[in-house]
């Protein structure tokens, strides 16, 4: 029982989906619907160490990676919020 409660405690549930949302926004704003630019933007992100295809809505949010995404967005002059 103690174990179940621990699992259900919102403090122990990791947030998910923010990284995917941020990456989707970044790619969408950079590529503006051009599929060729979507592919090249995704690859540029891979070269920076963030693989957008490996981050899904179920990937637990990682503050370190979120900070990297914001840093990249700033460099490529895209506003995420």
């Amino acid at each position, binding site marked *: 029982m103690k174990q179940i409660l621990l699992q259900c405690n919102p403090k122990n549930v990791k947030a998910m989906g923010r990284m995917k949302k941020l990456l989707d926004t970044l790619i969408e704003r*950079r590529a503006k619907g051009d599929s*060729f*630019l979507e*592919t*090249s933007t*995704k*690859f*540029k992100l*891979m*070269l*920076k*160490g963030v*693989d957008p295809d*490996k981050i899904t809505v179920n990937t637990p949010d990682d503050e370190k990676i979120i900070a990297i995404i914001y840093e990249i967005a700033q*460099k*490529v*002059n895209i506003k995420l919020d």
Partner: protein
Amino acid sequence: MKFKSFYTQQQNAKEAAIDLHNALVECNPGLIFVFATSKTDIALLNKELAQKFEDSIIIGCTSAGEITTGKMLDNSVVAMAINKSEIEACKVEIVENLDNYAQSLDKAFESFTEYFGTPISNLDYKKYIGFVLIDGLSLKEEQLMDSIGDQTNVFFVGGSSGDDLSFKTTYVFADGKVMNNAAVLCLLKPKTQFEILKTQSFVSTGKILKVTKANESKRQILEFNNKPATVAYAELLGVDEAKISDYFFSNPVGLMSGNEPYVRSPQRVDGETMYFYCSMKEGMELQLLQTGDIVSDTHKDLSSKMNEMGTVSAIINFHCILRTLQLKQSGQSQDYGKLFTVPTVGFSTYGECYLGHINQTSTMVLFK
């Protein structure tokens, strides 16, 4: 004549410049690409060319082998002239001091913005093509390409300068100025349609090597898959660890974008670590690649692109030195050269540029 390519094997730089001038002047060049063996006097060649082609933009670099229409060459100077009538606009900028290039790159982009009247971030990648030539011994290609890619969606294609495998000094040049630890950026708005072709002769084995410890700035991998790099690489290949360098040409690793590998080639072993010709970040997942036949694969990719375009008037080919060495080993150099039946210029690079820095690849620009 829209494009004209030419080569000379004249070793005397002054004589080589005369040869190039005699051959290319009739093309009324607005832009000339020159790739030259490091064995020639590069400063003199550039001085002479700048004097002879006063009204043309000249860019180029030293090479590790040259490519011209129908031929692969050594110890030569190759060139291609693009007629002024084919150029809507063209601007060249130099990025100096690659150890600390941020300011110089900003200045270059400001100059492009001023010249083209539009911020580089807004330029249409279908109308503009960028060329980049980087000092091939600088180890700064990854960072520079990353910075360029941050600023624009225009594709910058090019290569790292060579020095005929001496690995001592390489040069890039533009309009008579010869430099090292520098890069030449050329932003071109051609009047004719163009396409980019990136081709490499590899398929994925599906075997994964994850970078778990790296010294990125040195392009050194300490660990793959939480094991010493040499151990993990040998295990995946299924060969004796002492013999892995025999497999470097045939089995590099690839950062995969879908099914498309962006090749990173091993250079050498140091203890249980491996040096590559490209840097990799910790956490990157790579796939072990298996080589195919360069001539037949290039033929297939080139034919497909040429058919898609209908007609092709000229090709600029940035061709990895490792591919050149593989072709020499297999006695296929001339067969490769014969693939280029339209005016062609190119050189054997110390690394290719397309989105990032890559190896064992040819990045080409084809003009209609």
